[in-house]
């Protein structure tokens, strides 16, 4: 009996490992496609990083371009860039000439990652709390209050919520600082602002998912057996009820990335989002490519991670 169980688990984990490996391998062509698309998109567009309002003598411009290998044919530059990628070298930054792209990303990415994690915690904590509360007492005030709040959360975009939070908690009440990323106090407003919309979605999804599970016969059986309400939620329905939330986490990750562009601008946070927007505005080719690559990898890995959790929660998805 014992050996039988261990065999099934080892088969299961072997299957999972295979699934993960296959998806990781599939990521390489996807990322390559993204890099290629971005590379040519950025290069074919009019304008360059060294076009400035001041007239630069053509010889000097030529020298700068030669320095950054911009005078080579486009396809040569493309393969040079790919060659660099295999060594993990993202090239020098064009507009921030004292830094390489690797250095800039190494400085700013941890900040954005931290912000994203806090926002995700905010979203899951408040969202699940509201959604589960609502699902346990449908069509009562315990349902309407959190769900109305969730609707507001969905309809008030973060670039509206952010300034309003700054106005109320920073400038009027003076409870929290409104810019920077030094202390815990600095991190509260950005995390709440970025997480709010996702908390709202999580609340709606978990309410729907929980209601569906709670209407099952086995829940009635559990209640009839005298299982406590907490037991019904935690042991019997949570696993099935949060699957819609888990599948939402993939798109949410992509949303958090673009949300960070706004939040980092509003709260003056030195993160990757601000770097990306600035590099796009300055046409800093290598920096754009570097940040896009980081974001794409991140989103791809998070989607993979979400699929794995889903397979763990719902065995029916394992063979898909």
């Amino acid at each position, binding site marked *: 009996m014992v050996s039988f169980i261990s065999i099934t688990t080892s088969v299961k984990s072997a299957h999972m490992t295979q699934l993960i490996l296959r998806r990781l391998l599939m990521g390489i062509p*996807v990322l390559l*496609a*993204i890099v290629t*698309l*971005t590379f040519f*998109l*950025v290069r074919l*567009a*009019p*304008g360059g990083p060294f076009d400035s309002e001041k007239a630069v003598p053509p010889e000097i411009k030529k020298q700068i371009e030669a320095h950054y290998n911009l005078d080579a044919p486009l396809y040569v530059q493309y393969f040079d860039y790919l060659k660099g990628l295999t060594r993990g070298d993202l090239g020098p930054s064009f507009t921030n000439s004292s830094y390489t792209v690797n250095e800039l990303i190494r400085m700013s990415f941890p900040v954005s990652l931290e912000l994203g994690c806090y926002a995700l915690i905010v979203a899951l904590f408040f969202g699940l709390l509201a959604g589960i509360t609502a699902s346990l007492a449908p069509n009562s005030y315990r349902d309407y209050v959190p769900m109305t709040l969730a*609707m*507001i959360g*969905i*309809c*008030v*975009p973060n*670039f*509206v919520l*952010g*300034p*309003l939070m*700054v*106005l109320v908690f920073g*400038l009027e009440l003076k409870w929290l600082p409104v810019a920077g990323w030094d202390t815990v106090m600095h991190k509260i407003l950005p995390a709440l602002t970025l997480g709010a919309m996702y908390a709202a979605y999580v609340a*709606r*999804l978990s*309410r*729907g*998912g929980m*209601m*569906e599970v709670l209407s099952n016969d086995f829940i009635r059986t559990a209640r009839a057996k005298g299982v406590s309400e907490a037991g019904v939620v935690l042991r019997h329905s949570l696993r099935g009820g949060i699957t*819609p939330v888990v599948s939402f986490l993939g798109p949410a990750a*992509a949303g958090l*990335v*673009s949300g960070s*562009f*706004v939040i980092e*601008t*509003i709260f003056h946070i030195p993160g990757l989002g601000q770097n*990306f*927007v600035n590099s*796009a*505005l300055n*046409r800093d080719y290598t920096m*754009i490519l570097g940040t*896009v690559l980081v*974001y*794409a990898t991140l*989103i*791809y890995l998070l*989607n993979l991670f979400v699929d794995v959790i889903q397979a763990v929660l719902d065995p029916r998805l394992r063979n898909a």
Partner: protein
Amino acid sequence: MPDETLNTFESGTSLGMDAFRRLKKNKMALFGLAFLIFVSVIALLTPVIAPYDYAEQQLWLGATPPSGDHWLGTDYLGRDLLTRIMYGGRVSLAVGLAATSVALLIGVMYGATAGYLGGRIDMAMMRFVDIMYALPFTIFVIILMVFFGRNFILLFFAIGAVEWLTMARIVRGQVLSLKEKEFIEAAVSMGVRRRHIITRHIIPNTLGPIIVYTTLTIPNVMLLEAFLSFLGLGVQAPMSSWGLLIQDGAKQMEEYTWLIIFPSLALSLTLFSLNFLGDGLRDALDPRASKD
């Protein structure tokens, strides 16, 4: 006489009437519909009824709080805020409608083709959608906007090109499941022509989800436009859009609170209305669908 009762019963049960009756019971959805009609009428009439010109500067005024002459106040260049919100609404709504139409057109055609043809072609077409889903699209839209100028038409297409994927998935799923339904089989066995099956049986049955999803796509699109304008990548001054006004207001909200409050209200209320209407339509057109 009994014939008449029969007739009244029959005339009352058409799909559209039935859905409208259910929608009428939903107060929030009706409020949403009313507000949207109000906003659309204002947007259409703006060039006629706007109190000032959107770019007209009264520099001697500077930023003034709401008053009799300027109901919602003026910005630091002395431009009337009400006028700018009205013109901004035109832009936001136009982008919302146009980009949603692009998404609708691509999504429905793609999804219906994949679902109807089925088999290997369907597999390939849907894998392509899966891959597109994995791309960081907002990032591409930003790059597009930066490098190819902040072009209005391009904005429509860029946003539309992002939003069609979900539409394609929904339509394909619908067509796929409809193909297997008994009433289609019945129609086939009765010798109804294929063209008739598609136009009379398949399309009307996919219409509900398409309408619902369209109403829910418009707020997403408007949000994306406002997001781009907020970052300075969308609509450019002196033109006006709600995202742009919010960005402007956020810069000076410490002294001039009204500059952020009113544009934010306009955008949020419109998004609210669209979402409530979308939810209401979903409940009305597909009573079986759960809330989420």
